[in-house]
């Protein structure tokens, strides 16, 4: 098996690690489909670098847990709208060298810091062993990943406190029994169920309100503020139009008089025309239901042969069914056709005879 230019046939353990790493990365890439493509590539490159820096990939995999767990950790700090605003604001003031590190980068970085704290000594290769990983192995192009920011590396504790709940124990990664695991257990996230980023743009912001109780107040408070800002910046994202100026409906007297003169006789004629099938339906329904009831009674009143009873019962059922159909037609003519005719003419009058004027 060839992986990035070197052979692992003589090292079964390494092959297993690479397969697990590949599975992990593939699954993680699928689960991060909700992110923008650039952010997704950045996150994947950071995890790739994490694997490259790790001395023991199986230990790293054990520390990271499942890809779903990592996706949940990222999803809790990733907000598509917020990220879009952040990128837009960065592009506007790129000359000021404002480096707003995305939250998900900080989250991954905090994971990386914790892992580094947990196994600093395990990265040493024992004297009796040799390492297949050189310093220049797995070269990654600079544009393929966003390096762990110096600011975040310099102040990992401060940022990590903001990004992770304070109640989270330090052994979160070692013992994956925490609220993330509870969330994973309670919510089955399928890849097909992950929303498309384009769809997420048009959805109203509700996800942040479902943040767990342990989330810092900053995370819970920010989306409200930024949603308001975003409404002003780009109302199309929320799918809600801006507040329209107040308008008043003003009647056009001439058009109104003409419409009433024309609409009243037209409505009466229409109602009379509809009354004919309505009454016919009522008559047919009454006749059919009466005949069906008579046939039903007649079937059990003196017919000596069971076959004859069956025939009369069948005929009664068919006649009663037709009676029910005619009865429903009568109701539909009254409640649907006639009421719809009147409602339609009134709406037409509202459109033709009134105009909206700004107050």
């Amino acid at each position: 098996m060839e992986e990035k230019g070197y052979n692992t046939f003589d090292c079964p353990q390494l092959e297993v690690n690479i397969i697990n790493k590949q599975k992990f990365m593939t699954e993680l890439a699928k689960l991060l489909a909700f992110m923008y493509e650039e952010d997704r590539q950045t996150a994947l490159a950071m995890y790739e670098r994490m694997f490259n820096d790790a001395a023991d990939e199986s230990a790293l995999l054990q520390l990271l847990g499942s890809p779903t767990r990592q996706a949940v950790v990222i999803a809790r700090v990733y907000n598509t709208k917020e990220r879009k605003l952040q990128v837009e604001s960065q592009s506007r003031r790129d000359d000021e060298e404002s480096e707003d590190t995305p939250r998900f980068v900080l989250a991954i970085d905090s994971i990386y810091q914790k892992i580094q704290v947990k196994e600093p000594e395990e990265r040493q290769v024992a004297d009796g062993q040799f390492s297949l990983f050189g310093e220049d192995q797995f070269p990654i192009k600079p544009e393929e990943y966003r390096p762990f920011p110096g600011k975040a590396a310099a102040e990992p504790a401060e940022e990590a406190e903001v990004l992770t709940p304070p109640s989270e124990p330090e052994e979160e990664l070692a013992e994956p029994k925490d609220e993330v695991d509870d969330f994973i257990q309670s919510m089955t996230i399928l890849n097909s169920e992950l929303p498309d980023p384009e769809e997420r743009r048009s959805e109203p912001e509700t996800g942040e309100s479902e943040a767990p109780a342990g989330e810092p107040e900053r995370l819970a408070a920010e989306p409200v503020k930024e949603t308001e800002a975003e409404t002003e910046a780009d109302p199309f994202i929320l799918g809600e139009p801006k507040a329209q100026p107040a308008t008043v409906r003003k009647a056009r007297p001439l058009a109104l008089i003409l419409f009433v003169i024309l609409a009243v006789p037209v409505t009466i004629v229409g109602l009379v025309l509809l009354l004919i099938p309505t009454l016919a339906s009522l008559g047919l329904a009454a006749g059919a239901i009466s005949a069906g009831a008579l046939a039903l009674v007649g079937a059990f009143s003196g017919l000596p042969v069971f076959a004859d009873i069956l025939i009369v019962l069948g005929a009664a059922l068919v006649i009663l069914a037709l009676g029910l159909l005619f009865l429903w037609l009568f109701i539909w003519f009254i409640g649907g056709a006639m009421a719809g005719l009147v409602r339609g003419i009134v709406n037409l009058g509202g459109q033709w005879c009134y105009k909206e004027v700004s107050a």
Partner: protein
Amino acid sequence: MKKGWSIVITIVLIAILLGTVSIVVGHLTGGSLDRIYSVLDARYHLTELQQAYTQYASDLVDTVVSAWNAA
């Protein structure tokens, strides 16, 4: 209204299907329309009712025609 239509159509189709099956089974097992008519006629006097309605309709038509001619 659409829901009402779907419910009514479903009930009507089921009733017509059951009625048709019942009629077919009745015929296959020896049912006779003449025997049914004779029994119901004996009970509800269908022939006499039919004659009475026919006579009434004929009289009504004659009355209308004579009134039209008189006018």
